[in-house]
């Protein structure tokens, strides 16, 4: 067996020794340098752009703008953003290109002999702007006084509904009704490696981009679309990637670098171009986890049966859609939690504003939904006097359940199992020991009288794969070499290694599928010139999809081997079962292929004078179906919990008048080693996913999802106060405690 073992990560030695090159490490002696220029205007119309002074800077080789982009539009799921904002766009796109709708909109790419010359020229670009009124937040957006995209007709450009059962019956049956309003913030991905790329025209005449991304073939398609070229003329290669978390799904440097290389190549300039963003540019220039507001009402009988759920979700999409319409879909389902809900009315809106776009980020709408749903469950439990663990067990989905989308749940529903396993691993039924004084890293040891201790629970589910009717696919090719015995096998695959360990898992699964030695597997990876479309490393989907693709390719390759083909080749494009977009009027539809399930218990202490939170323990039970590599799975759980801790407690992106005020790691505070939970107990639950390869289930987002509501529940246990707004910064905790003193 090659799977089920904690194989050493194949990318580890190179990364630890520094031998592995990330995009910004690649050094070619003849590099020329590109600088991407941001509009720095949250909302303004460009009246005039003058490049003459910039072009006169010594060393400048070319400055490219909207006027150079053949099809000046971009968007992963709908085209609503100009590749560059500019006045003389070609008009081959319907997207108006003269308006900057966000401070990070790109207006030009300058290429020069040195980075300094590129920078100097960038500063000399003269633009005349007409400022337009800002749309600060969702409430501003909903007024529709100022339209961010007039052609869309409204700022609330996407709306999903759920109409299930009869709300009147649901409320009539309820003995207790809990109302809540929840606010969740932006989150920055803060990956170690800021955006960087190199571009050139390769020996076959393909415009080539080496960059960190999450889906080579999507990058290829987006570049090809904007440049109006066949996809095969564009080549995308992923070198080592320093983290992604969803933040590399949308384009950063891909299109503008491709454009620059292509334009310069036509002028006979063949040197490769290099570009790299600073941390500030990275934070300003790419999307964030969406901030949102949820207002919701849940009813239950006195014995704890949920009778009705009503919710309104307001998602701040920012200036462009990016993946907001898809994030909203997940949010929409998760806001009702992994429970049987007989009657539901949910309305979810994605709303344009003139702020940083929201987009993909680990959990993809589920953390926001879970914060509302799980907080509601904890409040219900409190109001009913029922243990919050028991309340979950009474209501959670099972294999025979009808989903919130009014269709049967895909088989393999394991929420009960994860909740029970989490409870036993955390000794939920044992009393929590007394508070001990703690030395919060940021704080001073408080004396015992100011410390409160508490414990909280939350659980969650989330779809694996994009679904909602999306045509999912994942390609794999395997070649077998040898004569009598298979001496070596080569896997061709595009899965992006973003640090999660996917290449190690691919190799393990290939060895398993072929039943040959792990050491005989070679891999050709993430280069559109050689490897097929794998789909994105996102939505916890890659092990699930790639495993199935590898199994299929291995089967075919082994067949060819039996037929004496040498090399024996097997190739497949795996497509999972199809799904539906949910109905516009009822929200009905078989929306998702499969789900992942998770539960968490948090034990914490809080200093009620300073608001500092100290998490002593997190117990996470995550159903991984079948752990292909247990250590990597534990790594995903621990990493997700640290990242979710930042989301729930420390990270506080400030956006004022359309601008990010703290685009630096000195002021946008991601957790440090001394902040994070002292102990994380990972419980690997293995309820096979019937559709998963060897039963494996998507898992890497799940541990992120319930942490914030579990912390809020533990804080309530400690202080008797509900915290409905994150991040739980010391300031927020103290303010909320004081506001409650005043009202109670």
């Amino acid at each position, binding site marked *: 067996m090659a799977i089920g073992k904690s194989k050493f990560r194949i990318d580890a030695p190179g990364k630890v020794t520094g031998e592995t090159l990330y995009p910004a490490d690649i050094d070619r002696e003849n590099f020329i340098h590109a600088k991407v220029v941001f509009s720095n205007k949250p909302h303004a119309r460009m009246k005039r752009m003058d490049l003459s002074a910039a072009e006169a800077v010594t060393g400048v080789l070319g400055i490219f703008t909207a006027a150079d982009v053949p099809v000046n539009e971009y968007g992963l799921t709908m085209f609503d953003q100009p590749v560059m904002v500019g006045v003389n766009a070609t008009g081959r796109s319907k997207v108006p290109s003269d308006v900057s709708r966000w401070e990070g909109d790109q207006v030009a790419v300058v290429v020069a002999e040195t980075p300094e010359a590129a920078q100097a020229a960038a500063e000399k670009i003269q633009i005349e702007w007409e400022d337009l009124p800002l749309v600060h937040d969702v409430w501003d957006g909903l007024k529709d006084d100022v339209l961010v995209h007039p052609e869309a007709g409204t700022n609330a450009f996407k709306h999903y509904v759920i109409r299930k059962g009869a709300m009147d019956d649901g409320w009539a049956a309820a003995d207790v009704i809990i109302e809540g309003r929840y606010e969740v913030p932006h989150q920055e991905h803060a990956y170690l490696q800021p955006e960087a790329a190199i571009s050139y025209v390769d020996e076959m005449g393909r415009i080539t981009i080496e960059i960190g991304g999450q889906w080579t073939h999507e990058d290829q398609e987006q570049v090809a679309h904007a440049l109006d070229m066949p996809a095969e003329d564009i080549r995308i290669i992923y070198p080592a990637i320093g983290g992604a978390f969803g933040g590399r799904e949308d384009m950063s440097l891909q299109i503008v670098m491709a454009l620059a290389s292509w334009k310069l190549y036509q002028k006979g300039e063949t040197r490769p171009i290099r570009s790299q963003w600073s941390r500030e540019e990275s934070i300003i220039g790419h999307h964030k986890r969406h901030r949102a507001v949820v207002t919701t009402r849940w009813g239950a009988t006195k014995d704890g049966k949920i009778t009705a759920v009503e919710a309104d979700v307001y998602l701040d999409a920012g200036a462009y859609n990016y993946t907001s319409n898809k994030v909203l879909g997940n949010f929409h389902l998760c806001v009702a939690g992994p429970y049987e809900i007989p009657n539901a009315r949910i309305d979810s809106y994605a709303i344009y504003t003139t702020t940083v776009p929201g987009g993909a980020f680990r959990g993809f709408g589920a953390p926001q939904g879970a914060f509302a749903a799980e907080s509601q469950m904890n409040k219900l439990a409190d109001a009913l006097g029922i243990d919050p663990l028991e309340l979950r067990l009474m209501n959670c989905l099972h294999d025979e359940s009808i989903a919130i989308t009014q269709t049967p749940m895909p088989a393999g529903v394991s929420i009960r199992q994860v909740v029970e396993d989490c409870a036993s691993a955390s000794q939920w039924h044992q009393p929590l020991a007394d508070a001990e004084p703690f030395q919060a890293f*940021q704080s001073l040891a408080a004396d015992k009288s100011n410390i409160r201790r508490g414990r909280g629970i939350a659980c969650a589910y989330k779809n694996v794969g994009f679904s909602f009717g999306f045509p999912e696919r994942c390609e794999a090719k395997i070649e077998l070499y040898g004569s009598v015995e298979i001496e070596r096998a080569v896997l061709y695959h595009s899965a992006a290694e973003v640090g999660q360990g996917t290449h190690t898992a691919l190799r393990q699964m290939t060895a398993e599928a072929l039943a040959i030695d792990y050491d005989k597997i070679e891999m050709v990876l993430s280069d559109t010139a050689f490897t097929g479309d794998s789909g994105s490393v996102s939505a916890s989907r890659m092990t699930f999809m790639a495993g199935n693709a590898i199994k299929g390719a291995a089967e075919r390759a082994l067949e060819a081997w039996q037929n004496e083909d040498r090399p024996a080749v097997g190739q497949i494009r795996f497509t999972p079962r199809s799904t539906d977009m949910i109905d516009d009027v009822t929200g009905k539809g078989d929306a998702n292929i499969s789900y992942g399930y998770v539960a968490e218990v948090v034990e914490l202490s809080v200093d009620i*004078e*300073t608001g500092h939170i100290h998490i002593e323990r997190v117990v996470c039970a995550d159903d991984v179906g079948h752990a292909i590599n247990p250590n990597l799975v534990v790594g995903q759980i621990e990493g997700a919990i640290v990242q979710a801790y930042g989301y729930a407690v420390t990270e506080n992106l400030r956006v004022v008048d359309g601008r990010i005020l703290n685009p630096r790691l000195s002021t946008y505070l991601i957790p440090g080693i001394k902040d994070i939970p002292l102990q994380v107990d990972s419980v690997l639950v293995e309820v096979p996913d019937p559709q998963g390869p060897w039963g494996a289930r998507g898992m890497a987002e799940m541990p992120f999802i319930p942490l914030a509501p579990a912390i809020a529940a533990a804080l309530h246990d400690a202080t008797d106060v509900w915290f409905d707004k994150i991040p739980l910064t010391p*300031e927020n905790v103290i*303010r909320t405690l004081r506001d409650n003193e005043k009202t109670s």
Partner: protein
Amino acid sequence: MWPKEFDYVRASSVDDAIQQTSDNTDAKILAGGHSLLPAMKLRLSEPGKLVDISRLADLKGISANGTLSIGAMSTHAEIAASADVQQYCASLATACGMVGDHQVRNFGTLGGNIAHADPASDPPTVLVAAGATIHIKRSRGERSVSAEDFFIDLFTTDLEDGEVITRIEVPNLSGHKAAYVKMPHPASRYAIVGVAVILEMDGDTCKSARVAVGGATVSAMRASGAESALSGSSLDDAALNAAASAVQSDISDALMGDVSYPESYRQAMSGVYLKRAVKAALG
């Protein structure tokens, strides 16, 4: 993140440094560089010339003879480790030991720290509470000023162009109960709020108290209301609570905040940290 181009000279003596900075207002003294260089990289400061005083022996050394005398070029690490400082004014050693990280403490100096007058600094708060005196040299001779009068506003002191801080003098407080406590910023370790208390005790009664606050305020400042609330009391809970609310009004006109820690929070924390400082002083 690159500074503007500048010239660099190494001063041959304190007088040389004074002359070079008096003749040229575009010149700046360079001590440890741990405040000046970051400011230059952010282009908040763009001096045309740096005059390096870091090797001048006259500005180094710590001695204790009735009062404590600390050369301006003493590093935070040297002060934190000095037996003389620990004996005369242990809370100054504590404050210097809490500055930034090892690198910052090994390079940053007390003179540079107070001349820069970052409101989030630690040592100024203790110096104000301790009633320290700043000794300054200039072309017209020498002068001295109390710490309380030295710190004026955000990054603003009583220091004028062409003046060099030579040493900082601190009274002998060995008979007092004192403490400095702070809430450090999670990224930089600068004080979000810092409180210094110096208590003169008579048995269980506090005969007199000196209290200073930094971090939460535009500069290190005395908190006289808190001082009166503590003086004459037995430092029981009632007195501490009274002092905690007094300190919040003492500083209400001088509050400072940022995106993560707004003024109101820092103000509230000054009360919390005052109570904790008194408890720490009483040990």
